[in-house]
């Protein structure tokens, strides 16, 4: 069992610089948790506190039922995997994986058993006699994972392990790590700045900014129901389009009006929420995901939808879809439309948007309203 619990954990560096404040998180056994956020958000500091490499200024950290604040890293039953897959150049893959166990004076037969077991899981058995130089980047990364696996830790800690791989390999490796997690059935804590990695790998993601947790949720919920404007923009690629709009009420019907006069309809629930919370006649942030804007010419919507007109500045054919770049109300925006679109730069496009695909955020607190 390796459930982890961080209770009101805080990290303050000398000079009174707070890196992490009031971090609360319960991690279930066998969970794959991803800490994600921009540079300086405190994700690596949090991971280092879990590893014991960084002292916890305030709060408590439990691994299982054991308070480990003052337990040395080597006694926490964890293993770390880094972004720079540092292997021993003159050793074979087998020896690279066995080395740590030899240092711990694990019996030879047990070392052999563990190395072969890990090699089988990682599908690197045929490579055991090779040296790192003869391996591809992906194979080296697998050996680095294998080195951690043979320790048979309760928790795997991974600090941006894929960030120095090329784009293609990164995609391949993130699938492999996710598969590995399923096979090992152990707790994984993974740090990345890449929201795509977070979305594709984590069972839950912890989105951080400036030392604070912004949202803890499963990837789908974080995407569908972002807790605030930061999460809305950070999760999803291309990013969510954010406009400012006025909440207007005409003949008892609540709607949104962008600064250029574009009217956006709202579902009854959203309208009621805005009205009940006193947002009528106030300005709010309006978030629209690029894929929720449809080219009316090739993919018209039915039911309750609004129409947004825009002048296409750039049309990028991505293969299965086309990105239409345009400026609306002073905001550079993107619509991710069907590849069959005939829209080109300079054309005026008519885009459809379902009423229930609008995200609303408070102008001051930036928290989600609906």
């Amino acid at each position, binding site marked *: 069992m390796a459930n982890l619990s961080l209770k009101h954990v805080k990290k303050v560096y000398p000079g009174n610089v707070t890196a992490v404040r009031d971090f609360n998180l319960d991690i279930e056994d066998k969970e794959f948790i991803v800490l994600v*956020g921009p540079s300086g958000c405190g994700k690596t500091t949090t991971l280092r506190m879990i590893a014991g490499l960084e002292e916890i200024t305030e709060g408590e950290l439990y691994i299982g039922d054991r308070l480990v604040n003052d337990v040395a890293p080597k006694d926490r039953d964890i293993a*770390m995997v880094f972004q720079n897959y540092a292997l021993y150049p003159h050793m074979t893959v087998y020896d690279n994986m066995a080395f*740590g166990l030899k240092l711990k004076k694990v019996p030879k037969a047990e070392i052999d058993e563990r190395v072969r077991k890990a090699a089988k899981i990682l599908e690197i058995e045929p490579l055991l006699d090779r040296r790192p130089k003869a391996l591809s980047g992906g194979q080296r990364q697998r050996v680095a994972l294998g080195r951690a696996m043979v320790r048979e830790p309760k928790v795997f800690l991974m600090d941006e392990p894929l960030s120095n791989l090329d784009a293609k390999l990164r995609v391949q490796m993130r699938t492999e790590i996710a598969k590995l997690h399923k096979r090992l059935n152990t707790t994984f804590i993974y740090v990345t700045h890449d929201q795509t990695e977070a979305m594709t790998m984590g069972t839950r993601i912890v989105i951080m900014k400036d030392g604070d947790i912004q949202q803890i949720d499963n990837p789908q919920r974080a995407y569908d129901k972002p807790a605030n404007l930061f999460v809305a923009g950070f999760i999803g690629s291309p990013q969510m389009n954010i406009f400012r709009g006025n909440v207007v009420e005409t003949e008892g019907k609540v709607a949104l009006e962008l600064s250029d006069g574009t009217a956006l309809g709202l579902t009854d629930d959203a309208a009621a929420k805005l009205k009940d919370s006193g947002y009528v006649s106030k300005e709010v942030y309006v978030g629209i995901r690029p894929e929720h804007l449809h080219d009316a010419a090739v993919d018209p919507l039915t039911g309750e939808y609004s129409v947004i007109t825009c002048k296409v500045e750039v049309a990028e054919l991505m293969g299965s879809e086309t990105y239409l770049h345009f400026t609306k109300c002073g905001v550079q925006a993107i619509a991710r439309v069907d590849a069959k679109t005939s829209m080109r730069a300079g054309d005026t496009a008519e885009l459809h948007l379902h009423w229930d695909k609008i995200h609303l955020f408070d102008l001051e607190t930036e928290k989600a309203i609906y």
Partner: protein
Amino acid sequence: MADLHRLLVQAAGITEKHMAVITPNERLVCPEDSDIDITFEEACKNAGKNFKGWNIYMPEDAAERFFLCIRADRYYESEAGKLVMLLLNSAFEKDDSVSVYLKRALEGNLDAAGLSMLEESLKSCLPGYVLLIDNIEDSRDDILEILTNTMDIKTKLIYENRILAVAEAENITESCSSFIKNVLSELLIECNAIIGGRAARASELYPLYRNCIEALSLKHIYGLGNNVLDYDGMYGYRVAYNLDPSLKEFLRKKVFTDEFSDMVKGELGITIEEFFRNNLNLTDTAAKLYIHRNTLLYRLEKIYKCTGFDLKKFEDSWLFRLAWIVSRER
């Protein structure tokens, strides 16, 4: 250890015997095809005897207490063992003399004769990078083992609970970074690797060792997070540290007003660090911080209004950077 390994491979080639060595620090060194299974204690107990099919030999100078193990078979010839023992003794003696002279060189009390002896002993080790490994806790043997397996270590010694080594690598910074990660992965210990510079002659070892110590001091003084420090890349910190105290005070007062000191404790401090880390590149900094370029410009404007330094301008940025370093001095 790598030398010993090579020596054993060579000896096995000459004698056609399987051999292994148990060293004074209780490490077993053997070629890949050997399967010797013996501990240091067992070797001590069985010196001069046969143990599990291996003949255990101890050198004449028992103080060394390392053991040569030769696979015992009916074709065993004692001459082969003696030959290897001789080679081992000579290898250890050579290492020892280097260590003694190195230690004296580090203490700065090596006379001309000693220096010339050191020069002679280190002939095969130089040129090489002088490395200092700090924060080795109580795992120095394991860390030494990791070090020698991560890069080409020409010679090494333990000095004041640190490891001093002369190493060769194509990219020494990268190798040191790999070493740090290896130690962290295997032992969960975060040590520091300090590169003092490249020595071509034995007489350069002492000043380069002093460089390592200075770099380590600067790390503590300025609270640097890096585990790999290259003395040659620390000009900014060296200049800042050596500034006249009155000038330091002037810089602190000029930039770090009460208002600004409060401001930099939050996101603005992170922004400044990231802006410098990205070589004053607005686009890269904004991307790393996940903020809009205009937000970054707004924050830089805030700094300008508060301090009078426009970080986008070279003249302002280098002076601000100096003040920023000075402000971190403990």
